[in-house]
């Protein structure tokens, strides 16, 4: 850690006595000679931070504050008057089953994330060993993560369409089905969750691969000399060293499955029981002008995600929170 300015000013004014104590150096600071230069020096970090902080506060903290305030009103988002309704919006969210039901859709995506992490882990392990066409496979597995969400939505709308890609492939291998993949809630949600596996496995895969490749090669060599099988190598060398990344992926998966929006919104618009919490909130706010209720829903989601993150920080305290 650096203390450039501090050190410099302390050196110059060491002789001067002072009342001010700076926390960082614990050394005295000059009291006299408050020149412009000094004021400027003290203000310097703030000049650098002004724009970032203004943006951060305007677009993150003000909205969060407002959102909490709106959530206790019946505001419609347009009219100048709003009535304070207390906790009524929150009561509605938890008592009206049609509002609460969307939470259960998250379980499809949660299950999908488990599959996604498992698949990513398998391929990361496999591709960490020397294989032919390794870079090609790595690229193929990762590329879906980079594709535009709307394009993915359309690609898979065609994939699941009647007589679309999936039906054609199935009839190729002799299975004839006239099942409408996006036709009933269960099948539609499973299909959409499948799309999310297709899309996001690549990111987990690259994260795991990076963690595995940072393990020094001698470890494997030593293990091989001792006659360890691949499974044993995985169990005792690879698994422990990817634990941090794995726990991060799990947290991202949980908060991600609560905040699903793009794929179902683009593909089904939230029809046939595929509406998620975010889709519902967006519709409440921007289609039905129920800003108050939507804010309450958003606050609930925010609290859940904060809770999950807090639990994770407690469980894995040595996580990479090394900001300074």
């Amino acid at each position: 850690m650096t203390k450039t300015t501090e050190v410099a000013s302390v050196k110059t004014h060491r002789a001067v006595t002072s009342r001010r104590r700076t926390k960082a150096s614990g050394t005295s600071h000059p009291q006299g000679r408050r020149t412009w230069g000094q004021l400027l020096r003290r203000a310097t970090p703030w000049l650098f931070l002004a724009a970032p902080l203004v943006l951060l506060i305007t677009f993150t903290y003000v909205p969060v504050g407002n959102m909490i305030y709106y959530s206790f009103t019946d505001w419609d988002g347009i009219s100048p008057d709003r009535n304070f309704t207390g906790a009524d919006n929150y009561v509605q969210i938890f008592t009206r089953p049609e509002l609460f039901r969307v939470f259960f859709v998250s379980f499809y995506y949660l299950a999908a994330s488990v599959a996604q992490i498992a698949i990513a882990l398998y391929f990361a392990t496999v591709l960490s060993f020397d294989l032919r066409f390794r870079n090609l496979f790595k690229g193929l597995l990762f590329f879906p993560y980079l594709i535009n969400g709307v394009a993915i939505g359309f690609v898979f709308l065609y994939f699941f369409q009647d007589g679309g890609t999936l039906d054609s492939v199935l009839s190729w291998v002799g299975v004839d089905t006239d099942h409408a993949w996006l036709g009933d809630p269960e099948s539609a949600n499973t299909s959409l969750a499948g799309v999310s596996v297709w899309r996001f496995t690549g990111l987990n895969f690259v994260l795991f691969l990076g963690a595995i490749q940072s393990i020094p090669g001698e470890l494997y060599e030593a293990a091989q000399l001792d006659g360890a099988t691949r499974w044993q190598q995985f169990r005792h060398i690879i698994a422990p060293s990817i634990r941090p990344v794995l726990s991060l992926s799990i947290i991202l998966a949980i908060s991600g499955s609560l905040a699903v929006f793009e794929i179902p919104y683009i593909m089904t618009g939230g029809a046939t029981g595929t509406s998620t919490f975010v889709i519902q909130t967006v519709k409440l706010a921007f289609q039905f002008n129920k800003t108050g209720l939507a804010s309450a829903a958003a606050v609930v989601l925010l609290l859940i995600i904060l809770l999950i993150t807090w639990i994770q920080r407690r469980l894995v305290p040595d996580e990479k929170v090394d900001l300074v």
Partner: protein
Amino acid sequence: MTTAQQTAATTRSVSDTRRVRRRGRIGQTLIYLSLVIASLVVLLPLSVVFLTSLKTSKEASDGGALSLPGNWLNFSNYATAFSDGAMLTAFGNTAFILLFSISGTVIIGSMTAYAIDRFHFRAKKLVMGLFLIATLVPGVTTQVATFQVVNSFGLFDTRWAPILLYMGTDIVSIYVFLQFIRGIPVSLDEAARLDGANSFTIYRKIIFPLLKPAIATVVIIKGITVYNDFYIPFLYMPSQELGTVSTALFRFKGPFGAHWENISAGAVLVIIPTLVLFLFLQRYIYNGFAQGATK
């Protein structure tokens, strides 16, 4: 050891290695098989859409999904996507937003990182706490209220709304810069200061140029994220002529209804820039996203 024993030992070890090797070969085959299947799963949906984009409207509606187009050079659907689907405007808008939001992110992120890493000031812990806590707030949840803020600035339905939002809420890039700036020796700053340079000169002439690799990372991650984002332009720029790549493609759904050959052409158009970028910058992209996601 007698000769007989030795021979026995050798035979055993030979047959052992052979068995291991055979098992290894089967394992190897299974591994390749799984990789090929995964590649097919990735490629099949994409290639079918590519095939469809080259079909005539009759071929697309009559033939099966896996049938091949009659004329491989039939690019008329792409022309339709450009002319009726307003893809040209969309690429223009996206480029405009990319240019401003990326340069803004780079400047703001590097300034923040410089201030946090190179200075000591009273509220430093507080400032960092503000940035840290902001990472926990998922953007999708707060849009209900962010919308009102943007609206009150009169920025709704302008390209500045997404630009400001992309600039103001990017904490990942601050982390990338912060990590990199720590590796730049402070002695450089000190030497420049002795030569009479002030903090701004040091930032501009010494730190910023040395940040190039971090800037590359941020430009790539930010570029792909902004290019692919649907939620923010969809919410803040409903006007037809303000469509970005994502929202313009989304609007294909209505007018082109069941014309899958046109929709496919639009989707392929949107995917191609990403593919080209990926092919050229693979290594940076892997590193960038790995760094960005783990912060």
